[in-house]
């Protein structure tokens, strides 16, 4: 079974706020979401195509959390984003977006 990776959906617009939080806007659903500082950091690295392990390492530098807990948090966050239609699945084998 291929690993599940995610990529941002093209019609999602992102802007970071001065306090470290951010806003995501889905042009498809017309809904907007706020991200706290952690979510903003994850999204920023995710946008830059960092792997979940790389993102987890970055979270470990910022927060007092171990690798496993960080990975779980990242996975849960990306699954939430997927449920809201803000990211899409990409299979490792063929890089074809599927939903």
């Amino acid at each position, binding site marked *: 079974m291929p690993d599940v990776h995610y990529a941002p959906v*093209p019609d999602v*617009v*992102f802007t970071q*706020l*001065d*306090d470290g939080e951010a*806003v995501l*806007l889905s*042009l498809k659903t*017309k809904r907007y979401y706020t991200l706290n500082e952690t979510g903003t950091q994850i999204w920023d690295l995710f946008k830059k195509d960092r792997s979940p392990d790389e993102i987890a390492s970055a979270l470990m530098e910022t927060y007092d959390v171990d690798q496993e807990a960080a990975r779980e948090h990242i996975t849960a966050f990306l699954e939430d984003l997927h449920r809201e239609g803000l990211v899409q699945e990409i299979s490792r084998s063929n890089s074809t977006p599927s939903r």
Partner: protein
Amino acid sequence: MTASGFLLGARRRVKDVGIQIEWDDAALTEPIETTLGYFGFAPLNKAAAAPDVCPLRLTFSMHEPPLEVPSQAEALSESPEGLRFHRLGETLYLHFKGTVVRLEPQQGTAYGTLATEKTTLRDALLFCLFFYSAVILLYYRGLRTMHAACLTQGDAGCLFIGESDSGKSTLAMRLVESGWHYLSDDSVLLSREGGGIEAYPLRRDFCLDPEAEAVFPQVGAHWQPHLADVRKQRLSIESLYPAQAAAQCTVRTLVFPRIVDAAESRLVPLASKEALLGLLHHSGALAVLDAPTAAAHLEDLKLLTRQAQSYTLLAGRDLRDDPAAAAALFDDVVERRKG
């Protein structure tokens, strides 16, 4: 004869963006001219005839074969008046009961075929089609529309952002009565200039319920019919307060009014993030913009929340009943801003 071959046309300017409007039936002349006047689109002189002076073109036909929305176009949203928006690639379609306008925002063009000859429906429809077509094309030229009243003290502007019937027009009238200058009671254009956001009037005439005359008796001699909303009357505010018309302002205060059951009104400070979410909530055009244009619009809204103080206005009965209450509340805001 105009560039499209249509016999009838007009050239107007919105801020520094020229718009060419063309049509092919004399029956459309009066409603188009009325609509242009309603939005305050200034005439371009005949000497400004070069094509690049008018990067935007709106064309309306009553005789060409009717347009259809392609079946594969994606449905986007629906306006309060019932116009439906669709997208196919970079092309947008506005649709209402058989009348379709095709917009090419990147090219700056809108072309529509009107399906009805019934005067009242046609004029109201034309008004809405013109408004939404122009608004969308202006977005792609960096001019953002905001459903807001805008009043000024000096060159500092106060934007009042809210739905229809949130009290914006009543509040605007009270402030104008007290000597404030006005851009609009309903719709403004926002433009990023010199590192900040400037506001310009889009619609000058105020729109009030007919019952407003009981509160503002001075308006009675200045009523005109509203083209699209039969519940309201248009007020030629420039004929009533000609010396208080403002051409533009730097937005320094954002206010989100909400009518409450209270004797006295109150201003509650808002953090920038809440203000941005409030602005997003009232940016209906985002639903039809492409991602790059929407992203630019979002950055402009963020800049607006940085340069302005933001408040929720819990609007009590005093703003309606006491002519001095609005000025007392907002003069204080302006004074604090200066401090």
